[in-house]
């Protein structure tokens, strides 16, 4: 048995595999398929302070090896989450991370303040990068200053480790990651989805009611991996890699590029057991390659000069 545990700042994970926000429901949806205790952790669906309606359907469209979604963060709001869901989740011995949303900086802060007083949450993931809420995909993670400002505020009210989730829809993701680091974020996770669209040529209408949505899945992996490598080479806080992971091999690419952990997203829909398969694949890889601690392979990309 190899040691698969990793540390994301003060947060210790039993293995580096997390389920990504918005693709794992509130966790309980996956209990028919797995023992949640075997996960490194999971990030619940993005929560605003109040419940949200989300976007009208169609909300999903498939593309080549990819999926565009425009759910629009439909959700039950932070209060119902704490009343109805959190008590069930406390039964599990795995890192529960809450994905925190806000229409403005104050809302992010009030979600975190509300959650602070509830037990059983391991960390917050600050979702400043959802492209589906505002038309045109605007969000704080597109600019260093808006990133800095919201992270700084939330960091000041948060009693728990803070992971800032970055957007890939930028020229220079390293610059944004540095802003998050400077503002006190304990880690960054990347990437959220790529702003995208698709058209029905017979009706001449967008295939999504919201026109734009976020592209995820294997199609985006090569771009997301590049971003993770760039960010991990330039910042000091831990990086969590996200984008198109369906197998242990995919996860290993991210770890080798410098990610301390990964999140599995879209693949949870296709094979709800993906997260566990990835954990098993990592274990297997360590055995085969004689690696006693998974941490030893993080950031070991062998770049010739």
């Amino acid at each position, binding site marked *: 048995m190899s040691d698969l545990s990793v540390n994301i700042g003060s947060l210790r994970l039993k293995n580096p595999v997390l389920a990504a926000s*918005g*693709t*794992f*429901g509130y966790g309980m*949806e*996956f209990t*028919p*398929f797995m023992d949640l205790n075997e996960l490194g952790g999971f990030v619940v*669906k993005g929560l605003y302070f109040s419940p949200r*309606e*989300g976007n*009208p*359907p*169609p*909300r*999903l*469209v*498939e593309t*080549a*090896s*990819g*999926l565009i*979604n425009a*759910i629009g963060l*439909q959700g039950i709001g932070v209060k119902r989450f704490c009343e109805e869901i959190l008590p069930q989740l406390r039964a599990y011995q795995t890192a529960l991370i809450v994905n925190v949303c806000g229409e403005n900086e104050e809302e992010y802060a009030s979600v975190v303040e509300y959650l602070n007083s509830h037990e059983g949450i391991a960390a917050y993931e600050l979702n400043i990068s959802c492209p589906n809420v505002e038309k045109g995909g605007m969000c704080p993670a597109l600019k260093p200053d808006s990133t800095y400002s919201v992270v700084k505020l939330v960091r000041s009210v948060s009693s728990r480790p803070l992971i800032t989730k970055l957007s890939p829809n930028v020229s220079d993701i390293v610059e944004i990651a540095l802003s998050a680091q400077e503002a006190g974020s304990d880690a960054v996770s990347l990437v959220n989805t790529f702003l995208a669209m698709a058209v029905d040529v017979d009706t001449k209408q967008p295939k999504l*009611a919201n026109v734009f949505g976020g592209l995820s*899945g*294997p*199609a985006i992996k090569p771009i997301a991996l590049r971003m993770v490598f760039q960010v991990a080479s330039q910042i000091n806080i831990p990086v969590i890699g996200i984008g198109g992971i*369906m197998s242990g091999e995919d996860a290993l690419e991210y770890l080798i590029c410098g990610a301390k952990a990964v999140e599995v997203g*879209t693949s*949870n*829909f*296709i*094979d*709800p*057991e993906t997260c566990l398969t990835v954990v098993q694949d990592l274990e297997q890889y360590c055995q085969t390659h004689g690696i006693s601690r998974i941490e030893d392979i993080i950031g070991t990309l062998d770049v010739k000069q």
Partner: protein
Amino acid sequence: MKKDSRAQITRKESWREYFLLSLESPAIAQDAQPGQFLMVRASVDTHPLLRRPFSIFSAEGKSVEIFFQKVGLGTRLLSEKQEGDTIDIIGPLGTGFTVEKEIKGKHSALIGGGRGIAPLYFLSQKLKAHGGTARVFYGGKSVEDLPVRERFEKSGTTLSCATEDGSFGTRGLITEAFEAELNNGFTVSRIYACGPELMLKKIAEITAALNIPAELSLESVMGCGFGACWGCVKRIRKGQEPGWHKICEEGPVLKAEDIIWELGNNE
């Protein structure tokens, strides 16, 4: 709800673009209820990415059947599978048709349009098992779109067919055939239907006017099929609240009066 990544195809029947597959999957077969569905993986590696939803055509002993029409890449890949191949399925999923105890001795109409016939065979069997009687209305563009009518005939179910081109049964839409029967004095205590949205909307109107309880099976683009993606919503009433609710959980079968027929939702 179980995942069975190696359900074996034990029998395959095909008619032009329609296919019926028998899958050996004891745990899923045992739990299945009429109106529920499976999520079937048809992809080669990463493309097409998502599973595809199919109603359960029948469940008996260790086997479930699915009946589908080839309309795109996923169904094409599935149609190329052979007897002996295995496929990866999740099920049974969703909320199916309700068959109450009071159905005993009562008469139901089951209306299926095209591939929408898929969940109605299983339902007809269950209704009979509960002592009800069922008359099935089965419509399509042409006689070739009614491939499974013999399954109903063999099981002794009364079947009325309609085709748009008149090549089999009455000429016209199946809803017209159904309305004509109602006008002829045909009475039912319950209606179940599955098919194109326009057909379902029409049935909702007819049954609302006559005050007959109706259950309709809806389609929706499904990302996961088990409540995790929030992709499959339609505007429906759940209790008092109209809102975007998940069709893979609250449905695919819904009470007609709970469906809100509005633009960009169900049309």
